[in-house]
């Protein structure tokens, strides 16, 4: 099943054209890793695919299913506890019970931190709070911008497991990362270097 298709997308940022002629179609069961040097436009592409950027984006992007977009800035409020952050997260269109949220926090190894302000947790733990959203969504397509940042080895393994589970259940994932490939047999690469405008 096709979840997203982009044809001949070009992206401008400010006065500068970053990317040109990007074609991408994502079907369920696929994992796409977006590759490219710093500043090549990986995050801009993800924002455009999510539908957040319209000015400066040309070409056609069609989204067929609800998607989840996890940006660098993870929309987590430091003053709120992980429990409250997930309960009142602005993008979740489904309601999760406190028990489901507690379970998700347990899964990202934040059991015991449910009621502490997120601001008092470490960067990696804050990242885990943001990633716990992956367990509370029914979006089929995940757009993850540098999801492995700040995670320790066990966290990376958990995320890999989580993505594999999502994909085998009919979802799809597009993520950016500078880490070496983790999903060897599943994964397809989108190297933005070849679309960059020099």
């Amino acid at each position: 099943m096709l979840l997203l298709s982009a044809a001949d997308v070009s992206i401008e940022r400010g006065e500068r054209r970053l990317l040109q002629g990007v074609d991408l179609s994502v079907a369920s069961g696929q994992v796409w890793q977006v590759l490219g040097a710093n500043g090549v436009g990986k995050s801009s592409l993800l924002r455009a695919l999510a539908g957040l950027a319209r000015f400066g984006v040309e070409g056609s992007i069609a989204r067929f299913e609800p998607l989840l977009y996890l940006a660098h800035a993870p929309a987590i409020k430091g003053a709120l506890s992980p429990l409250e952050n997930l309960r009142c997260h602005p993008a979740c269109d489904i309601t999760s019970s406190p028990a489901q949220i507690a379970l998700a926090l347990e899964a990202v190894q934040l059991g015991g931190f449910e009621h502490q302000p997120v601001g008092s947790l470490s960067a990696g733990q804050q990242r885990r709070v943001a990633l716990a959203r992956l367990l509370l969504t029914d979006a089929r397509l995940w757009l993850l911008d540098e999801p492995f940042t700040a995670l320790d080895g066990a966290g990376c393994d958990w995320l890999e497991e989580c993505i594999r589970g999502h994909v085998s259940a009919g979802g799809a994932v597009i993520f950016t990362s500078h880490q070496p490939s983790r999903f060897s047999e599943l994964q397809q690469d989108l190297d933005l270097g070849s679309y960059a405008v020099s």
Partner: protein
Amino acid sequence: MPSVDRPSLSLLAAFGRQFRRHGQALMASLTDVANPLLFFFMVVTLFPLGLGPDPLQLASMAPGILWVVALLASLMVSARMFASDFEDGSLEQMALASHPLSVLALGEVAAHWLATGCLLAVVSPVFAMMLGLPSQGLGVLVLSLLLGTLCLTLIGAVGSALTVSIRRGGLLLSLLIIPLNVPVLIFGTAAVTEAVMGRDPSTWLTLMGALAAGMLALAPLAVGAALRISLDS
């Protein structure tokens, strides 16, 4: 993976959730809530020192002073209304939600108004008495400030949404919204003055009520559109 055990969220629930989220964030940083009140207190204490201690003169100027300070306090806080949401990525997520951005933003504005404008209106009799405002004006002062700060907050929300992506947008924000705040100031001061004089202030209060109702209907649409533009740049 659609799941049956998690019902989707109604519009009202989405509004309530956003209200709650913003309200909790505000409660966690009490300085943000206390700042406008402290500002109000300081200015009201300074005026008698500057103008001289003549109670009659102070009382006659009190409606104007109180309203101008309320306007400035509201201006001061509205600049930051969406700033933290912009910085931590919440605005992006709000824009991606399936509910209209204007409704979600209105939830935030409502929480913001309760913690700033509404609170200021409720506390204002204390400040009014410090300036010697005759007691027959107190009720109208609170009522006019309740309606007026609602207008000011909604106007401020539009301005804040337009300037949130601009670094140091504070000055631009002031230039944008002070002209729009002028009618509110005029109506509010007039209502309180009428009440102090012993006349019927209902004309002015009705005008302010109409203004507030109109703003409440239109401002969220403008805020939603402005936030999308800000996110897009």
